[in-house]
């Protein structure tokens, strides 16, 4: 392995060095500074005599005498089942003082695209225990469903609640469970603060979730460039556990906004032509290469489900980060500042939220036969109630018809009974739907135009005494 002392330019996170051999694109580089510190980087551009290197730890301390070594391979993640229960830094090195990790395999972190022909369509319900998700925007195995939030919102609490409660209702037929796949959580933190990180860690330890988890921590004061590697490390580990070790892996990535900022930083340092708001033009492709690593594969037991979290700058979902994300992911969950200030836990606004894979993951045999209809009707009724709220502010309740007043009451009850369950409550799907019926029964039967008559017959509460679940739940 040749060593060069030929650095010609250092700019932001980039180092340019002259070489006299062929260096592969994406290859890993080690740079040793005069102080003896070893930094790692990756080849961003390779031509015959000059290569551009992106240094993960940042370029401070590098001078033109630093020596550059090309390792002749692209970035790899050492993977093994023993990673479960471990805490690693953003580049995949253990930071929990545990034993050394003996890898079973070393896998390329870039990850090849899954052949669409080899995928299996995700349609198995994941019960998160959160009504706003299970009932209205159901998550299924192999889906990528981001949480769109903004600064100061309790998205971390929501993510923790999901990580804690998520379960796959397997057909409970005796010994099947032994062979069935286990659930694992991989948590990838990118640029979050130490305090946030502590909260996650405490929650993981408190609930004993750590032993079925792998944690990757790139904190706010860790090098920004490392953030571009962290999610790839996370997903490589996830794919290994899912498709080679049969785990159902839930990947939580927070915060994607920090990841995109890092991309922008590198783009700017390379003097690339910027796209919208200064983000690189290839951000869609880059994000897709992360998000598309969720899924299921024919003939493999496991699955990779992703819940990326992103904080929308200015709570604006037309910002390039949420916008491009929304075009790639299969829906989104909106955390709403207004609902949060009303004290709803979790403050999920179901109206703009969406799960694209829901329709195939619910219904008879999956959740319940009436699920789809109930969901549609609740969406329509809540939207109606929301609209009327604006009107009520102008004309007052008295000016509205009886039915309109019922819609208003429905909207209020929907928020207080259905959405506001608290971060500690775990509701199964029957309970969620049952509350749904309690609420829908506030409306007259013939207003339920989206529900099959048969289901109305079966579930509609003719009088209040049948509405026991709400009382019981309170």
């Amino acid at each position, binding site marked *: 392995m040749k060593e060069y002392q030929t650095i010609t330019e250092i700019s932001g996170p980039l180092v340019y060095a002259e070489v006299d*051999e*062929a260096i*592969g*694109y*994406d290859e890993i580089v080690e740079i040793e500074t005069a102080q003896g510190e070893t930094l790692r980087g990756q080849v*961003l*551009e*390779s*031509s*015959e005599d000059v290569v551009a290197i992106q240094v993960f730890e940042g370029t401070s301390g590098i001078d033109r005498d630093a020596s550059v070594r090309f390792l002749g*391979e*692209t970035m790899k993640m050492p993977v093994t089942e023993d990673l479960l229960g471990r805490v690693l830094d953003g580049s995949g090195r253990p930071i929990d003082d545990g034993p050394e990790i003996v890898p079973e395999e070393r896998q390329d972190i*870039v*990850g*090849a*695209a*899954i*052949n*669409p*022909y*080899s*995928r299996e*369509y*995700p349609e198995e319900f994941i019960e998160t225990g959160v009504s706003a998700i299970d009932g209205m925007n159901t998550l299924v195995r192999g889906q990528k469903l981001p949480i769109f939030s903004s600064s100061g919102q309790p998205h971390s609490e929501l993510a923790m609640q999901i990580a804690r409660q998520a379960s796959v209702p397997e057909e409970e037929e005796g010994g099947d469970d032994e062979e069935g796949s286990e659930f694992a959580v991989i948590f990838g933190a990118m640029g979050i603060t130490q305090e946030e990180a502590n909260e996650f860690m405490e929650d993981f330890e408190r609930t004993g979730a750590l032993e079925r988890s792998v944690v990757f921590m790139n904190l706010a004061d860790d090098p920004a460039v490392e953030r571009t590697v962290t999610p790839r490390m996370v997903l490589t580990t996830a794919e290994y556990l899912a498709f080679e070790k049969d785990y159902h892996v839930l990947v939580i990535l927070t915060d994607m906004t920090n990841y995109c900022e890092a991309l922008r930083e590198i783009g700017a340092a390379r003097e690339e*032509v*910027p*796209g*919208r708001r200064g983000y690189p*033009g*290839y951000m*869609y*492709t880059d994000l*897709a290469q992360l*998000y*598309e*690593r969720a899924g299921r594969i*024919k003939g*493999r037991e496991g699955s990779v489900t992703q819940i990326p979290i992103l904080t929308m700058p200015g709570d604006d979902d*037309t*910002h390039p980060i949420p*916008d491009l994300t*929304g*075009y*790639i992911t299969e829906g*989104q969950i909106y955390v709403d500042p207004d609902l949060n200030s009303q004290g709803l836990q979790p403050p999920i606004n179901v*109206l*703009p939220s*969406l799960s*694209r894979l829901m*329709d195939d993951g619910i219904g008879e045999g999956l959740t319940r036969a009436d699920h*789809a209809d109930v969901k549609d009707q609740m*969406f329509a009724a809540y*939207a109606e109630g929301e609209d009327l709220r604006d*009107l009520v502010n*102008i*004309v007052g309740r008295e*000016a*509205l*018809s009886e039915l309109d007043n019922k819609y208003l009451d429905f909207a209020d009850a929907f928020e207080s009974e259905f959405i506001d369950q608290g971060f500690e409550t775990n509701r199964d799907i029957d309970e969620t739907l049952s509350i749904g019926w309690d609420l829908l029964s506030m409306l007259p039967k*013939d207003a339920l135009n989206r529900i099959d008559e048969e289901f109305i017959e079966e579930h509609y509460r003719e009088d209040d005494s049948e509405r026991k679940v709400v009382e019981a739940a309170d």
Partner: protein
Amino acid sequence: MSKADTTDAVEDSGVIQSVSGPVVTARDLNARMNDVVYVGDEGLMGEVIEIEGDLTTVQVYEETSGVGPGEPVENTGEPLSVDLGPGMLDAIYDGVQRPLDVLEGKMGSPYLDRGVDAPGIDLEEEWEFEPEVEAGDVVEPGDIVGVVEETVTIDHKVMVPPDYEGGEVVAAESGSFDVTETVVELDNGEEVSMHQEWPVREARPANDKKTPRTPLVSGQRILDGLFPIAKGGTAAIPGPFGSGKTVTQHQLAKYADADIIVYVGCGERGNEMTEVIEDFPELEDPANGNPLMARTSLIANTSNMPVAARESCIYTGITIAEYYRDMGYDVALMADSTSRWAEAMREISSRLEEMPGEEGYPAYLAARLAQFYERAGYFENINGTEGSVSAIGAVSPPGGDFSEPVTQNTLRIVKTFWALDADLAERRHFPSINWNESYSLYKDQLDPWFEDEVADDWAERRQWAVDVLDEETELQEIVQLVGKDALPDDQQLTLEVARYLREAYLQQNAFHPVDTFCPPEKTYLMLTTIQTFNDEAFDALDAGVPVEEIIDIESAPRINRIGVQEDYEEYVEDLKSEITEELRSLY
């Protein structure tokens, strides 16, 4: 050995000079623009996109990690072409027409490996060829010389390639052949096989482009009823994420009455393509009950697959579509999404450091979009048959803002515009096509067809519905200020009628087994039912019946259930008379 010696480089091979993502420059490569080259030791497929002195820039259709300077680049001397012949239906390709099922087998892994190539059609499979010419017949380029049953639905017509000279048939035999074998021999020595190649960036020739006058019936009420597209027409479906572009495209692919569907998943989600791959073989073609895949060719270049192949997948799709058009078929091409295609152009363009146009898109964006949509149309083919290619492109504008370049440049070309609306989607009004913003410029030329085939008053009824919906939009503005009850009775009634139009007629449940496909007759009957309610209700109002009583009649809500009725004719008849009776009993 990766270090090729540059001095003895042969004419059609060069060496890599630099690598940056999908863009590779090569030195000493003797190539023409758009030639296909194989890059590096692994032979990754690429295309020449720029030549400057002895430097050739190549966009590579595969991941370039680990590729370095000094590795060889081989020129094939051919432009990017597709293999045309039987076997394209019921197939699934990536953006450069490599069959994904074959790749899975060859790579032995669910991941897409690099440097593996496979022909677009199986070269070994044998087909039963039935000639339609005999020795002594004179054939010209494009003429049909025989037929192969490609799938249960589609007879594949074997044609003389357009770039042949044509001549007298010397021999034509029926029997089992693979696609490379000669099936018809001409006196000038030309041999016709079932296999043709065609460069994707070049439109296949046709005699004449005609005005399309037949609708592409989609079974979607709002499309057929209000904003129809013609066979050979163009349409754009722009909408923010979550507004139902893909579901609309899927519905069209499932139920449109085209002979052939080419579905291009361009830079979209992997799971969506999987859904198509899993669903379509099980779904029935509404026209004949055969599996839908028997008329479908899929091109899947998902968002994480190489960006250069995303740029080419649209061309691959439309070339396949044109080939079936040449056989005299009506082909519908769905491209989901053209924005991803435009972004691929932008990405390549910025790697080339070209001067950017609007929002970083290359200055030639408008020209490329226009070229693509111009390849659609109702054509008289060079063999005298008539066929059509309808192009329906989804557009994904950033932030749902239709003023961005891709949407705007598309709107300048297409004649049908189905605007998806996030507000409607949010209240789960699907398909969430905004009836105020959408338009179809084919309406007038298609009305005669609907009047002949469905009902004489098709156009009138549609206009009535449009008027009511327009009036509703105006009234809603007032309602927002003063509330519904402050409106006069007749306006309240109009709102009620409009509500039925919206909820029963415009909404359609794609996931309901019956409602998902609505034949034009049913679309028409549903509209007449609502109009019956309208007419009778206003009569009642004139007779002095209070508007609340009219609105509260028991039979009217059943209008909402027409969509899910299989025997809708009887249901509609009963319902109409019940509504009439009930309303007349009030006065």
